[in-house]
C-alpha cells in the first residue's frame, strides 16, 4: 500500500508540447483516484510518469514520501494494466500471471499459490493453460488484472483498461474492478475518458484538460459543485445546460422580497434565498453577464410536478423528444440566449437550447410550447470571463 504524490509535475516533450502542466495530486493509501479527461488531455502521460515509463520534465513524484523521479520502473513496485492488455502472446495464462514473480525470484510454491488465488478470484481457473489468443476480450482483460494482482504491488496503475470491451462487458468489468480494488485495498490510479467509469469507480476523481488539473474531488462533489465550466460540461450525461445569462435585481415578488433574478433570453428565474446564501459571490455580479448552468434533471414537466411557484417555470418551445425508456430527453429552444461550449466559448454550431431529463410519463410533444419547471435550488453560476464557478 502506498501514498502517491505529484508535486508540480510537468511533462514537456522534445517538440515543445506540454502534455502535463504543473500537476498537483495526492492519492491516499488505498484510494482509487480516477484521472478523467478528453483524448489528448495528458492523463495517460501523467500515469506513465508515475509508472516511470516517461521521464518527468520538472516537479516531483513521490511514493510514500520518497521521490521516485530517478527510480527505474521495475524498482517502483507498481503494477500496470495497459489499454491493449499487453499479454505475452507466446506464454500461457498461467505463465503470463507468473511471469514477473519468476523474475523476482519468488519461490515456485508461492508463485503457484498466488496465481491460483488470483485465478480463483478472477474466475480464470479453467483457462490457465490457454494462450491469450484463445481467450475472449473479457478474459484477456482479467488475465491483465491477474498479472497485476499476483505481484501484490504497492499500487496499481490502469490505463483505460475497459476501452476495448463492448458496452455490456464494460459495465460488468467496471463493477468487478471496483469490487476487487476495494477488497484488496491497493492504492490505484485509473485513467479513463469515460465519465461514467470515473464517477462509478473513483474514491476521488481528477478532471484534466489541456494538461491542467481542473478539479479533484469526490464524484458527488464534482457533480454537485463543478469548479469551472469545463468540469460542469464534462461531467454528467447529458451535459449540464450552460447558457449566457444576466444577473438582475428583481422587482418585489409576491412576498414583497427583493432578490436577484437570472435572465436568459425571454426567461427570468428567481434565485432562492438558500442558493444566494450558498453563493455569496453572486452579489458582485449584479447587472453583469454570467453563465448559468442547469442540470438536465433539474428541468421537469411542470404539469407533472404541479409547481405553484411561477418564478421557476419557463415556457419552452419543444424541438426534439428522445425516448430512452426509463427517461425522456426533451430539447427546448431558449430564444436568443447563446449556448455556451464547455470551454466557455459561444457554441455557434448548436442552436440555443436546453435539454431536460424528464419522467417518461410526460406528454410534452415536439411543437408544443410546454411549461418546464426549473429546480432553482440547484442552479450553477460561472464567471463569463474566467469560467470559474461563482461561489464566494
Amino acid at each position, binding site marked *: 500500500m502506498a501514498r502517491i504524490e505529484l508535486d508540480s509535475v510537468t511533462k514537456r516533450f522534445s517538440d515543445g508540447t506540454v502534455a502535463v502542466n504543473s500537476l498537483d495530486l495526492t492519492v491516499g493509501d488505498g484510494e482509487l483516484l480516477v484521472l478523467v479527461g478528453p483524448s489528448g488531455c495528458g492523463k495517460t502521460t501523467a500515469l506513465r510518469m508515475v*509508472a516511470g*515509463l516517461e521521464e518527468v520534465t520538472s516537479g516531483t513524484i513521490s511514493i510514500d514520501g520518497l521521490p521516485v523521479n530517478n527510480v527505474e*520502473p*521495475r524498482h517502483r513496485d*507498481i*503494477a*500496470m494494466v*495497459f*489499454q*491493449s*492488455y*499487453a*499479454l*505475452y*502472446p*507466446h506464454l500461457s495464462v498461467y505463465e503470463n500471471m507468473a*511471469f*514477473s514473480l519468476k*523474475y*523476482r525470484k519468488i519461490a515456485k510454491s508461492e508463485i503457484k499459490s498466488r496465481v491460483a488465488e488470483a485465478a480463483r478470484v478472477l474466475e480464470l481457473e479453467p483457462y490457465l493453460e490457454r*494462450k*491469450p*489468443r*484463445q*481467450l475472449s*476480450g473479457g478474459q*484477456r482483460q482479467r488475465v491483465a488484472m491477474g*498479472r497485476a494482482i499476483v*505481484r501484490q504491488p504497492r499500487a496499481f496503475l490502469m490505463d483505460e483498461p475497459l476501452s*476495448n470491451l463492448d458496452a455490456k462487458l464494460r459495465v460488468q468489468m467496471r463493477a468487478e474492478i471496483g469490487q476487487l480494488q476495494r477488497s484488496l485495498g491497493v492504492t490505484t490510479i485509473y485513467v479513463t475518458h469515460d465519465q461514467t467509469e470515473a464517477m462509478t469507480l473513483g474514491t476521488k476523481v481528477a478532471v484534466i484538460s489541456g494538461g491542467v488539473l481542473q478539479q479533484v474531488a469526490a464524484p458527488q462533489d464534482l457533480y454537485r459543485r463543478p469548479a469551472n465550466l469545463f468540469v460542469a460540461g464534462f461531467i454528467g450525461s447529458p451535459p449540464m445546460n450552460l447558457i449566457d445569462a444576466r444577473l438582475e435585481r428583481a422587482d418585489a415578488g409576491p412576498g414583497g422580497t427583493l432578490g436577484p433574478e437570472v435572465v436568459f433570453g425571454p426567461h427570468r428565474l428567481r434565485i432562492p434565498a438558500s442558493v444566494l446564501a450558498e453563493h455569496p459571490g453572486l452579489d458582485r455580479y449584479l447587472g453583469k453577464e454570467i453563465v448559468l448552468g442547469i442540470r438536465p434533471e433539474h428541468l421537469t414537466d411542470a404539469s407533472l410536478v404541479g409547481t405553484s411557484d411561477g418564478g421557476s417555470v419557463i415556457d419552452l418551445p419543444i424541438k426534439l423528444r428522445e425516448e430512452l425508456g426509463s427517461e425522456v430527453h426533451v430539447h427546448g429552444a431558449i430564444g436568443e440566449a447563446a449556448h455556451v461550449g464547455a470551454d466557455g466559448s459561444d457554441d455557434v454550431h448548436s442552436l440555443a437550447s436546453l435539454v431536460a431529463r424528464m419522467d417518461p410519463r410526460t406528454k410534452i410533444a415536439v411543437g408544443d410550447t410546454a411549461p418546464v419547471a426549473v429546480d432553482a435550488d440547484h442552479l450553477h453560476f460561472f464567471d463569463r470571463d474566467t469560467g470559474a464557478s461563482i461561489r464566494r
Partner: protein
Amino acid sequence: MVIPRRLSTWGLFAAMIVVAVIMLYPFWYMIDNAFRNGGQFDRQSGHSFAGWHQLFANLPVAGQLLNSTLVCAAAIVIILAVSTTAGFAFAKLQYRGSGTIFLLVVSALMVPLQSIIIPEYVNLAKFNLTNSYAGAVLVYAALGTPFATFLMATYYRGISDELIEAAVMDGLGYERTFLNIALPLSLPAIATVTVLQFIQIWDDLLVGLLFLPANQRTITVGLATLSAGRTTSIPALMAGSIVSAIPAIIVYLIFQRHLIKGLTLGMGR
C-alpha cells in the same frame, strides 16, 4: 461483358498452371538429365547412373557439403546475433541518432558485392584471414547483416510498445525483455532471415571461390569446378545440383511452419 464466375476460375487455374510449368520445368530438366550419360543427354533418350558416378568420382561431395554447412551455419549465427539485437535497438530503444544509423545500415544494402570484393580481400588478407573458413564466414556475415537488420527492425516495430513496457513494469531490464519477450516473438522473422540467408550463402560462388582454399571449398564452388575443364559433363553437373539443392529444401521445410504462422496473434485486444 460479364465473365461467368466458373469461367474466370478456370481461366485463373490455366494461368497458374502455365506459371507452375515455367517454374517447375528447370527442376524437371535437372532431375531428368541427372540420370543420363553423355550420349543419352545428347540424344535426350535413355537413363543411367553414369552422371552420379562421375560426380562422386570427381568431387569430394560429402566434404564439400560439410564445408557449405559449416560456413552457412557460422555466418547465419553471426547474422542473427547482430540483426536481432540491432533490430530491437533500432525499433524499441530511443536514442539520439538512431534514425541516421539505421539509414546507414540500410544504405549498405545498395552496395553490390562485386564492387567491394577486392577491398574486402585486401582487408582480410591484412588480418591473415584469407584461405580460411573465418574469412568467408565474416564476409558472408557482413554482406547478410544489413538486410537481416532491416527485416528484424521492421518486425520489432510491429510488436506493440506496450508489450515491451509491460515487461519493463514486470521487472525486466531491456536485456531480459529482449531475450524473454522480443526474441521468442520474432521467431517468424528469425526463420525468414535464416532461410533467405541460407539460400544466398549456400548458392554463392564468388566469395567461396576467393576466400576458401581448395580443401575447404563449398559445394557450389565444387560444382563450378566441374565445368571448368575442357569438357563439361552436364549429367554430373545436374546430379551435383540436386545434391546441392536438397539441404536448401530441408531448411525451408524445417522453418516453413514459422514462416507462415504469425506468433503475435492474441497479444492485444
